[in-house]
């Protein structure tokens, strides 16, 4: 994982990217933490609310029932504000001592802020924690598939702006095929094929005809929106009962695992697509970093000339890996129609592909990090849903805005300069 250098070791011999090992004092993290702390104190103390916030940890169908956690809202706010201040102070001290704030410290900070915010918003109300997390995962599933496809595609050197198009194509074909055959599994297969088809156009134009990959990606999105929209109005909508009523995947409870408190209901009472997603994340991560396939893929994306020199066929490696990426994204598209919504609608992906792209960059082209970023986006969107149900004290628009604002802050303050695979976006012309 060459792109990730979280801890600076002054004499690390394995850091060829930074020629001088002098530690550069970076206040970015500290500034970001300070802004968040000020925000937290303002919200939790200055505009603090009174009451009792209840966190419901179990659903009624759980075997092991956890008691509800009741937090006195104002006190929780004060305690959390103090902790946030302490962490910010620690980060100041760390920068002075020429060290970087470790990732876990930032994570603790984020979790604390989140708990503080939740308890503030839920004064005298109850938040169903498993429901919140379950919904987050549901919203994140297509994003994760999209991000995985994006990671593979960019790692092999083809920028994939067409994630949105692949998702939409997958959603459309899976709805149609599953409705016609009444077999959700066939729908899943069709979605993968549709994703592969979109990918192959992307690959053919960018690898064979050397068209700029960003152009092809953007244009493919428009093309798929147009195609699916046209076919939807002309063919699907008039015969909706035949073509747009796909059977949905049933939820499968995994024995034992699904009874673990909190985690069980969230992760192990899901549909087949979600279980495929877990496998896909693991396989993509292992494949990219621990197999011959992954090594070749990354070498083609980082330095195609070197890869070519040692005998790797750059064009075909790119072509087939972009196609694989398309198949994975297609699965995410199928989740819209076979997993969550249950029917195809015009432009139903609603920008999910672009959020997935943001997750790829946010996750610095790493499958696990990209998955976490996608989960974060899913959580943030679902938080708004849950809070609007229990009645949020903030105007709903600001709640809806929050995930995007947090992302901007996080990208600007915590991630910073992200460096993609070196040859991503550049066609390789064998001389």
């Amino acid at each position, binding site marked *: 994982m060459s792109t990730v250098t979280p801890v600076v070791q002054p004499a690390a011999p394995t850091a060829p990217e930074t020629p001088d090992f002098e530690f550069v004092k970076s206040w*970015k993290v500290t500034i970001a933490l300070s802004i968040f702390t000020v925000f937290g104190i303002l919200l939790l103390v200055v505009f603090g609310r009174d009451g009792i916030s209840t966190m419901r940890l179990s659903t009624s169908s759980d075997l092991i029932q956890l008691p509800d956690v009741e937090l006195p809202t104002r006190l929780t706010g004060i305690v959390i504000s103090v902790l946030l201040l302490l962490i910010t102070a620690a980060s100041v001290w760390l920068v002075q001592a020429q060290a970087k704030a470790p990732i876990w410290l930032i994570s603790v900070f984020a979790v604390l802020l989140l708990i503080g915010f939740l308890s503030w918003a839920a004064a005298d109300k109850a938040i169903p924690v498993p429901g919140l997390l379950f919904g987050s995962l549901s919203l994140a599933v297509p994003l994760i598939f999209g991000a995985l496809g994006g990671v593979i595609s960019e790692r092999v050197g083809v920028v994939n702006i067409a994630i949105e198009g692949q998702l939409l194509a997958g959603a459309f074909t899976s709805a149609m095929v599953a409705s016609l055959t009444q077999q959700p599994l066939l729908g899943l297969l069709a979605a993968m094929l549709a994703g592969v088809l979109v990918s192959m156009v992307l690959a053919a*134009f960018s690898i064979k*005809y*050397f*068209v*700029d990959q*960003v*152009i*092809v990606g*953007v*244009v*493919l999105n*428009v*093309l798929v*929106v*147009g*195609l*699916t*929209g*046209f*076919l939807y*109005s*002309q*063919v699907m909508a008039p015969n909706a009962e035949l073509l747009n009523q796909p059977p949905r995947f049933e939820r499968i409870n995994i024995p034992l695992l699904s009874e673990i408190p909190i985690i069980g209901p969230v992760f192990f009472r899901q549909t087949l697509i979600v279980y495929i997603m877990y496998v896909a994340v693991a396989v993509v991560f292992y494949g990219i970093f621990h197999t011959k396939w992954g090594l070749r893929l990354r070498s083609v994306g980082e*330095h*195609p*000339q*070197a890869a070519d*020199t040692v005998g790797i066929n750059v064009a075909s490696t790119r072509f087939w890996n972009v196609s694989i990426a398309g198949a994975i994204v297609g699965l995410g598209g199928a989740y819209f129609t076979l997993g969550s919504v249950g029917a195809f609608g015009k432009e139903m992906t609603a*920008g999910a592909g*672009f*959020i997935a*792209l*943001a997750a790829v*960059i*946010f996750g610095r082209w790493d499958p696990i990090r990209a998955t976490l970023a996608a989960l974060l986006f899913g959580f943030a969107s679902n938080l708004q849903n849950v809070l609007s149900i229990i009645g949020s004290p903030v*105007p709903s*628009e*600001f709640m*809806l*805005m929050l995930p*995007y*604002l947090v*992302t*901007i802050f996080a*990208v*600007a*303050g915590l*991630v*910073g*300069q*992200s*460096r993609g695979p*070196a040859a991503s*976006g*550049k*066609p*390789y*012309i064998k*001389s």
Partner: protein
Amino acid sequence: MSTTQGSETEPRAGVVAPTEGPSRWNRMFREITTGSAIISVLAVVLALVVGAVMIAFTNKDVQASAGYFFSRPGDLLAAIWNAVSGAYSALFQGSIYNFRRPSFAAGIKPLTETLTFATPLIMAGLGVALGFRVGMFNIGGRGQMLIAAALGGWVGFAVDLPAGLHLIVALVVGILGGALWGGLVGVLKARTGAHEVITTIMLNYVAFYLVSYLLREGFLKTPGSNNPKSPATKVTAVFPDLLGPNYILHFGFILAILATIFTWWLLSRSNLGFQFRAVGLNPNAARVAGISVKRMYVYAMMLSGGLIGLAGINQVLGTTTSGFGAGLDSGIGFDAITVALLGRSKPWGVFWAGILFGAFKAGGFSMQAAEGVPIDIVLVVQSLIVLFIAAPPLVRAIFRLPEPGAGRRTTQVNVTQEVAAK
């Protein structure tokens, strides 16, 4: 041409690779100048053929007559002809000239509608193209348009000023709003390295919800109305009509022409434009040459946002002056990307691409109304045109055209360089 960039993109082995590549837009630029006009024409033809196939396949009459194809094949051909020619003539009559109307003055009306639709596409397309030339991908058109419309629109309906001055103030405030929203992205990129693709996408959503809130409870709300819609723009701030009240074409189109001239001047005649292009071609080389790359990012995003803001304010002061909602951008921010791509990021290219897309938009609506062909077909045709134009070898292969001589020459030159470099 396909192979022109070979010697520039691939660093030689052993040399530390630059973190960001040279501009792909430059390659694209060269592609269009070496490609012949015939490719563009054939690309449009090809796209229209694909569109025709789709229209024919999904047409009810065609499907019905295909059932008895072997007994009466003529029926099928007639049905296909009717479906396709009906759709395309509706497209033409809705966008350029309507022959069914009695007088020239009435018949030409669709063309003025085309130009009205084209106006914001040209403005926003110029903004996106400007970003491309500096090597930045501005997907934030939606947000920049919304903020521009919100600020400029507020001046338009809430402030009392004499006619003329009012318009100018609203216009300037709108452009500044777009520049502010775009410049924010530039500042974030320059100061923190945040990737502009992420920040522009996120700021789109932020702007959308911010404007939604302002329309519902903030200073954009119409007093005494529950509709999330702003009050109508005051007459003193409305763009004057260009061809009288019978036509919808307004002063915005003149602004689009001026914006095109300005962008052309900026990019190819000004000092700043030179620095922009240098950064777009190769930021590392530009830095070595003493250009402040970060400052260029901020300026470029401000100008890009300002141009897109112009598109936003154009909608509020010109096209729909009866008040606006949060959906006022109606996809223009994203269409602008395609327009910029089709125009090869060159100002006049963007201008004509914007008019072409405006024609598709105007004609698409009348095609949907007259023939029942969904307007989505327009998206398909548009995107296919861009795809085909971007890949001349494909078009040549389909029509079995020979490789043009001009293209070959540059290819060979670069191949020699590539060989020499090894």
